[in-house]
């Protein structure tokens, strides 16, 4: 803070220097500070530094679309009637006039046709919901691929997974509320899923529906869950997620000046307040444009729900698409036991599989830290290529997800690509098992190749594209060393250590008694790290500088000759032309 020296009295005589009267804003801030103690908080946090990278803003999309959801959702609650009471529609959509329907559906139609801006709000709400869950997912992928889930952030990973799960449930309950044909088909399916659970299924279904499906309670109950219960938990978890983010500080990419101890970036005020605040308006704008221009869930075409009806193209929203795909490709296995039918064809794909996948997702950070044995804090991110097996695991999971997703749209794929729905189903039954394995192997080898490429750049420089020919007719490509910044960034990573179960000895020099799973851990560690290309040591980099000697030999004969002309190709500055490599 600079001191204003112009007002300092230069003698003891005359008028003493007086401070100016505080401005109005200052007075208000002072009033608030004296009562709320904000200054201390603000001083610490307003200048909090965040690193800059586009991929760090993906979670923000989720946050802002959640705000859009809250705002548009409040609007919808003002007209929506969560009731299954039967009414005869007399609104302004002619083709349904006189049709008996639930109050929930009638009020959704009213929102769409008779409330000004209602359809826009409905569509914005729905698009924002699709974006909300999608952005959580790409945020999750970013965190995983860059290793940002490592200690100390494992619990924030768990919270994030819970947010994804709750977001999905929130989406599903919202999908069910309009009580149109598609909603009702979804609830009917959910009822079937519950009933497929052995022993407890029917009790759960009867408890949830207040009797046999559909009953009269499900819509009001889902409404409470949708507008109160889940949003409340979501808000609390989002708060926890962000408090932990502030507490842990944001991760950053390695680079010169960036260490595990600091965060290099820009302060919250003014930079991130503007960037993040601006991003909110962009998310709001994109949701509005989509809500205004792209039709989503045209409930008037579906008609009211009626258990006797169904429509082609009955699919859940995208985030429930993959379990739906699993359900679609599952062979029809059932077994009969003492007069009870166990529907494996429903129970396995829709209850067991999502639960299993979610557990795997939740455990990923813990599995990796168990294998690596790494208990240190990590604030520097890793490039996906530098953790080939980790990257490959997620790509395999994504492949599984994507194939299941495609299976969930098998009917649409069949009509749009003129394929047979049966053959798509048979193909997917194999592909969901084989695809992830192939994806795993390709990704892992691809990452290792990229690591080798990085190593080449470090040790031999980058390829200039300039081909040299020696007097004898030998050809070689001119390599130039990469910049020190790039070299630092490429080498700023740790060497991997393969865990060997028998190597550990205790303080007395005796073999330490290993746990029963040590052998497994050793094998997994070998799989994860043994093939990785490790960053070169300083000695290796030094030695590599002499590798190019033969290239220099080739050039030697050129010394003293006229310039070869390549430097005049327009891409180079001709001033300090230095292509001859006189280092």
């Amino acid at each position, binding site marked *: 803070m600079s001191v204003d020296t112009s007002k300092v009295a230069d003698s003891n005589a005359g008028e003493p220097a007086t401070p100016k009267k505080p401005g109005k804003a200052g007075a208000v801030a002072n009033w608030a500070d004296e009562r709320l103690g904000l200054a201390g908080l603000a001083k610490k946090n307003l200048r909090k530094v965040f690193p*800059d*990278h*586009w991929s*760090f803003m993906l979670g923000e*999309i989720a946050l802002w679309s959640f705000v859009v959801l809250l705002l548009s959702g409040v609007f919808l609650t003002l007209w929506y009637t969560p009731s299954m009471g039967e009414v005869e529609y007399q609104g302004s959509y*002619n*083709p*349904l*006039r*006189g*049709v008996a329907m639930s109050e929930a559906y009638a009020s959704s139609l009213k929102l*769409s046709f008779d409330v000004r801006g209602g359809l826009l709000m409905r*569509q914005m709400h729905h698009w924002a919901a*699709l*974006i909300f869950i*999608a*952005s959580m997912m*790409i945020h999750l992928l970013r965190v995983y691929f860059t290793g940002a889930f490592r200690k100390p952030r494992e619990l924030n990973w768990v919270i994030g997974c819970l947010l994804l799960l709750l977001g999905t449930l929130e989406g599903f309950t919202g999908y069910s509320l309009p009580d149109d*044909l*598609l909603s009702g088909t979804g609830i009917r399916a959910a009822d079937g899923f519950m009933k497929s659970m052995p022993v407890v299924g029917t009790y759960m279904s009867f408890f949830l529906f207040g009797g046999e499906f559909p009953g009269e309670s499900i819509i009001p109950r889902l409404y409470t869950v949708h507008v109160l219960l889940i949003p409340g938990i979501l808000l609390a978890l989002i708060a926890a997620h962000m408090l932990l983010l502030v507490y842990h500080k944001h991760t950053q990419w390695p680079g010169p000046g960036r260490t595990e101890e600091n965060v290099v970036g*820009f302060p919250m005020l003014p*930079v991130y307040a503007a960037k993040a605040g601006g*991003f909110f308006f*962009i*998310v709001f704008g*994109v*949701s509005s444009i*989509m809500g*205004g*221009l*792209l*039709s*989503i869930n*045209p409930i*008037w*075409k*579906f*008609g009211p729900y*009626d258990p*006797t*009806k*169904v*429509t*082609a*193209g*009955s699919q859940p*929203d*995208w985030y429930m*698409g993959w379990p739906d795909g699993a359900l679609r490709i599952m062979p029809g296995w059932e077994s009969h036991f003492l007069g009870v039918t166990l529907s494996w064809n429903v129970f396995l794909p829709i209850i067991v599989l999502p639960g299993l996948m979610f557990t795997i997702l939740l455990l990923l950070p813990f599995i990796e830290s168990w294998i690596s044995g790494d208990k240190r804090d990590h604030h520097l991110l890793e490039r996906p290529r530098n953790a080939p097996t980790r990257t490959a695991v997620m790509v395999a999971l994504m492949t599984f997800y994507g194939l299941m997703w495609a299976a*969930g749209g*098998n009917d*649409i794929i*069949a*009509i749009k690509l*003129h*394929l*047979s*729905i*049966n*053959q798509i189903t048979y193909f997917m039954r194999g592909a969901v098992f084989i695809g992830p394995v192939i994806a795993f192997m390709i990704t892992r080898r691809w990452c290792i190749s990229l690591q080798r490429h990085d190593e080449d750049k470090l040790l031999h420089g980058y390829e200039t594209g300039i081909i040299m020919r020696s007097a004898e007719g030998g050809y070689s490509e001119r390599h130039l060393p990469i910049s020190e910044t790039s070299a630092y960034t490429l080498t700023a990573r740790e060497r991997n250590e393969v865990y060997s179960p028998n190597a550990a000895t205790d303080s007395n020099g005796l073999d330490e008694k290993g746990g029963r799973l040590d052998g497994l851990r050793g094998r997994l560690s070998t799989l994860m790290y043994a093939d990785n290309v490790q960053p070169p040591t300083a000695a290796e980099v030094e030695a590599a500088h002499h590798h190019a000697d033969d290239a220099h030999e080739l050039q030697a004969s050129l010394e003293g000759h006229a310039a070869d002309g390549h430097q005049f190709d327009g891409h180079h500055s001709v001033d300090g032309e230095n292509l001859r490599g006189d280092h």
Partner: protein
Amino acid sequence: MLLGLVLTGSLYSAFAPAQAGSAESNDALVAEGRELFLVSCAFCHGKNGEGVVTVNGTQYGPPLAGVGAAAVDFQVATGRMPMAQPGQQSAVKARIFDEEETAALAAYVATFGPGPAVPNESDYSLEGMSDADREEAISRGGQIFLTNCTACHNFGGNGGAMPRGGQAPSILNTTPEHIYEAMLTGPGNMDSFSNGNISPEEKRDVIAYIETIRNQPEYGGFGLGGLGPVSEGLFGWVVGIGGLVGFAIWIAAHTTRTTKQPSKGADA
């Protein structure tokens, strides 16, 4: 009994002068239809429309006795017949036979056995109804449509998948006449909705509803193909997330550091 039949027959011909009058032209039409049939249809359906069975015992072309003129009009006028190649489903293509030839074929095939006739416009038109009745008919037709048709043809009539590569076609460009005939005759995998199942008035109402949703504006904006949540999810990811990630890259690319190149003058 025989007397009764004779009596009924002669009474019928006496009270149906219009038909009797056009009997000659009908005969000519049938004869013309027979010529066309022998050239274009008999290869699969047999010379007398009796059907052709393959060595495997499957149908090469089904027998046509009793399919009626309505089936011929539907199959030929939409270009489904004659088939270009055998397959899961006869594809819609440019029609081979013009209206007159189609009528001739229909007249000939109708002689194989009694079957549904080609419907008149009055069968599927709401002409002459009051606005209130018309509105009621449309909403009734909508309920019948949602009960009987959407399971295959989709809520907006955009079509859906059928087993083994077949598909329930989009009915958004089908003429009312052909929709009526399709309901009546059940082409391909489709059920035939006889008049006892869905009455002629109800068929008319269904057609009125289809015409309504076909002509009404897309209230929500661009309809995304009207295929339901799959295309919505695709747009959510491509336009929504794709666009927002683009914006994120754009925002992150603009830092507080100036990217302005120092001017030449300042350099020197």
